[in-house]
Every structure is written in structure tokens, then in C-alpha cells.
């Protein structure tokens, strides 16, 4: 057969998200709590900076690593999480955090390397590991432990022998956040067992109760961690496709070698928007976070009132209530009966079974209506 996909691709299933997207698209009265991106637009100042750059004809490639001015702004921005990276040599601007994750996997994995992935988690990691020639190893987390990763869970899953770990907190889909102590326990395990870490911190700015702790800042971790972050979530810039990776100079140099051949440089217009976002949009960031925090509390108390177990998610814009039983059937029936779209937890790995990912990146009035509909669905079910 011509253009036959290789085995890695052929064996990778369609994401479960896709199925619910198609179901939801069949109706036009759907309120969606299934959206994985902010309902805000990028801050106006950032958008005007992008417009101005286009007007000035700034449409060429940038340096492979991204505009230095942007890397300098990033270096300053991440100091809020005690991260210290040299803008010249330790930061790489990428086409979304997505590219950064893919680059890290392709740069550091040898064929057959094992990559521990805590579950439930963001859907791209396992396929990404496979595309890069590695073997994902699922490390289940559970509601009993607020979906936190522990050294015990890693040991039980056999992750002591893993070559790398992809760590994602604040987490998509659960909204779970790891505090300093919990992160330190995982860090010790990684140092002890010589495990590299890819830390996807894209939701770091959306941490509602205390500050985000980056594992890279803990003892023995900087040299073994690639930190990934981006503008999609905190600055509502998903469509502009801009993220970044930070790590030791040699590691970033190696990632840049892949990046320079496969991407050349991240989108130029987006880089102008991002420079302005970091320069002047702290207020917008704070306002969005405040609004998300209100909705978070609202959603969690509504689930409690309905009698669905919902642990207190403390980050990102997701809640992850238990639906008691088959999550896929629940989500399908809910969509059918009440026109509310949610994502079944099992889409994010078997450990997500029996739960629903509820995105509260939706205006307050729609959120209220959606939760009322879920409530009447739960009552009649």
C-alpha cells in the first residue's frame, strides 16, 4: 500500500476527545463544559502588539531559539516560581508547549526507553512517547489521594526503572496541584533512581491556593528537568501557538538542534504578542485567574450539593467529580438528555474511569445553567 502509516502511528487510537467532539457537534443547543482552553480572548494589549508587528511587516523567521527580547522577558517572568534560567542559553521558544513536549521526548529518549506517565493526565503524552520510540509506563493516581503523584505509586508501578517522568501539575484533567512537600517526595525518588523529568507547567499561573512549586527548583533536579510552559492557558493565547522549554544549557542546545531542523522558529507574530503579554498584561492574567477561581468554587460546591464526590481541585480550569459508574455512558446520556457536553475521565487513562472532566472555562451564566441541567439529570437517573 502506498502512504501506509508506520506501525507506531497505525497503532495509536483516535483520542476519546474526538468522539465527544463529534457527538457534541451534532446538536446546536449544547452547553459545553468540555473545552480545554480559556473562554477569554488574549489580552487586548497583546493582540495589538501582534497587529502592530504585522503592520510593520515583521513576518520573517526569528532566531531559532526565539527573539532574545522574549527569552529575556520569560526569564524574568519565571522568577516568580524561583526558576532561574539564562535567556541566551537555557530557554527555547517553541510552537506551543506541545512542540516543547515533543522535542524533549525526541531529544532525550533512546529507542525503547521507559517514560513514566501519571494517570489520569493530558492525552498527548503517551502517543508522544510512542512516536519518539519510547514506552509509556502508566502510574495510576486516584481520588483517594486527590490525584497526587507519590513515590509509593511510582514504586508500585515499577517506575523506579523508568528513564524519564512526565509530570503535569496543575493537572489536566483533574485540576490537582502538588504542594512543595509532595513535589519534594517525587523529586527525591527521581534523584535516587536517576530519572529525568519533563515538567509540563502550562497551568502554573492558574494555581489558586498557594504558589506553584516547580520540581526543577528542588535539590538535584535542575540538571535533570526540562520545564515546559506556554502562553496558551495563562494568557488565553491557544491559537497563537506559543510555548517554551527551559533547562540546562546543554539540554536546550540539544533540543534546539531538533527544533532548528523541524520548526526553524516559533510563530513570529505570536512572539510579539507574548513579549507584550509579559510586559504589560499581569493585570489581565490576575483578573482571569480571579474569575476562574470564583467559578472553581462555584462548580465544586454545586457538585457537593448534588451529592457527587468532587475533590477540591486547586489549579487549571477543571474539576473532576466522580459520576458513580461508567463515565462514558454518563457523558453520552447527559449530552443526549440535557445537551451538556463533558469529557469522560477514562479518556485520560484508565485511572480516570468513573469521573468526568468538567471545564469551567465557560461564562458564569452558562455554567449555572449547565450545572442545573446536570443536577436534574443526576436526580432522574
Amino acid at each position, binding site marked *: 500500500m502506498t502512504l501506509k502509516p508506520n506501525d507506531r502511528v497505525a497503532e495509536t487510537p483516535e483520542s476519546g476527545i474526538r468522539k*465527544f467532539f463529534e457527538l457534541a457537534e451534532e446538536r446546536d443547543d449544547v452547553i459545553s463544559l468540555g*473545552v480545554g482552553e480559556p473562554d477569554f480572548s488574549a489580552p487586548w494589549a497583546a493582540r495589538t502588539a501582534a497587529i502592530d508587528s504585522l503592520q510593520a511587516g515583521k513576518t520573517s523567521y526569528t532566531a531559532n531559539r526565539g527573539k532574545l527580547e522574549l527569552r529575556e522577558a520569560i526569564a524574568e517572568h519565571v522568577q516568580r516560581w524561583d526558576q532561574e534560567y539564562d535567556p541566551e542559553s537555557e530557554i527555547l521558544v517553541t510552537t506551543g508547549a506541545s512542540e516543547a513536549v515533543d522535542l524533549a521526548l525526541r531529544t532525550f529518549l533512546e529507542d525503547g526507553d521507559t517514560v513514566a506517565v501519571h494517570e489520569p493526565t493530558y492525552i*498527548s503524552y503517551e502517543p508522544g512517547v510512542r512516536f519518539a520510540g519510547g514506552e509509556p509506563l502508566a502510574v495510576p493516581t486516584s481520588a483517594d489521594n486527590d490525584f497526587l503523584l507519590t513515590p509509593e505509586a511510582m514504586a508500585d508501578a515499577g517506575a523506579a526503572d523508568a528513564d524519564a517522568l512526565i509530570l503535569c501539575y496543575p493537572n*489536566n484533567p483533574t485540576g490537582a496541584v502538588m504542594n512543595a512537600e509532595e513535589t519534594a517526595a517525587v523529586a527525591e525518588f527521581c534523584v535516587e533512581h536517576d530519572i529525568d523529568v519533563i515538567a509540563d507547567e502550562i497551568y502554573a499561573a492558574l494555581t489558586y491556593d498557594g504558589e506553584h512549586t516547580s520540581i526543577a527548583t528542588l535539590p538535584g533536579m535542575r540538571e535533570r528537568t526540562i520545564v515546559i510552559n506556554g502562553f496558551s492557558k495563562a494568557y488565553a493565547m491557544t491559537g497563537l501557538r506559543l510555548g517554551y522549554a527551559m533547562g540546562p544549557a546543554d539540554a536546550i542546545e540539544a533540543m534546539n538542534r531538533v527544533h532548528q531542523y523541524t520548526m526553524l522558529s516559533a510563530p513570529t507574530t505570536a512572539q510579539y504578542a507574548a513579549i507584550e503579554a509579559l510586559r504589560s498584561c499581569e493585570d489581565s492574567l490576575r483578573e482571569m485567574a480571579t474569575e476562574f477561581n470564583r467559578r472553581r468554587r462555584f462548580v465544586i460546591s*454545586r457538585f457537593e450539593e448534588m451529592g457527587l464526590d468532587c475533590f477540591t481541585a486547586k489549579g487549571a480550569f477543571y474539576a473532576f467529580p466522580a459520576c458513580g459508574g461508567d463515565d462514558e455512558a454518563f457523558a453520552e446520556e447527559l449530552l443526549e438528555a440535557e445537551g451538556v457536553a463533558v469529557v469522560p475521565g477514562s479518556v485520560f487513562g484508565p485511572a480516570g474511569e468513573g469521573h468526568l472532566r468538567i471545564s469551567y472555562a465557560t461564562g458564569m451564566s452558562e455554567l*449555572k445553567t449547565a450545572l442545573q441541567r446536570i443536577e436534574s439529570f443526576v436526580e432522574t437517573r
Partner: protein
Amino acid sequence: MDAKRELLSLLSTDAREDVDDIARQLDTDPDTVERLLTELESEGPVRGYQAVIDWDSTDTNHVAAHVELNVELDRDTGYEEIADRIARFPAVESLRLVSGDYDFAVKVTGDSMQDVSQFISEQVAPLPAVTQTVTHFVMETYKEAGIDFGDRDGDDRLSVSP
């Protein structure tokens, strides 16, 4: 943020939230919200609750003007006295003392331009302290109280995404 500040910030975006929903969003109980609201109302910060209306999309006659007022103070008349005299007219929707070339910025509303002009020339201009008035009729309102009247863009995000 302390509870009152947070409540004010929430009310400033939507004053119609009911007490139960406010309590859920602020992680507190309805009784506390009731108490805070009563305090905010009686202590002064919350002066009222109004809808933000785009009059141009109704068939009501509604005209607004921004009026610049220059005044002259004397021994018996300060800004406070003048403000008090002007603020009591129902046609005066807002009144502010401002820095710059004039003293008071007044927003006046009425059923017609004639209505508004007449009010200025008969009730405001003749006041002894007023030395000059400049009236700017509002031609078009683009944004009011933080709400962009032109902003009716739908949500074009994918309905379900990772």
C-alpha cells in the same frame, strides 16, 4: 483579598448574582453574604444596583450630553456648595469635580436635545457661580460601565477539546 473587597469586585461585574451563588463563588455561606451586603450598603460603598442599558437599541427617546462647567468660587461658595446645588436635579446623571481646563464634568440626560439644552441654559448656566458651560451631545456609545456594546462575538472555540 478580604471578603468585602472580593464581594465588591464580584458585584461590579454582575450585581444580579443571587446570594446563594455569590456564597458558592466566594467559598462562604449565604448568611455571611447577606451580612456583608447589608454592611456594604449601610456603610456607603454600595450606593445602588442598576442595569447597563444601551438606549440606542430601544425605541425610547434618550439623549445624553457631557457638559463642562467652569465656576468661580467666593468666600461663601465652595465646590461642595455648587456641587450640591447641581446634583439635586434629576437630569444630572453624574457630577464630578475634575482637574484640567474646567471644573465640573456633568453628564445630563433627557428626552431630546432641546430638553437637555433647555435644562443647561435655564437651570445650570444662570447659577451665580457658573462662568461657562460647554455642552457635548453624545452621538454614539461604544462602551459603558465596562461593557463593550459592539462586542457580540460568538464563541468560536471547538465544543470539546483536549
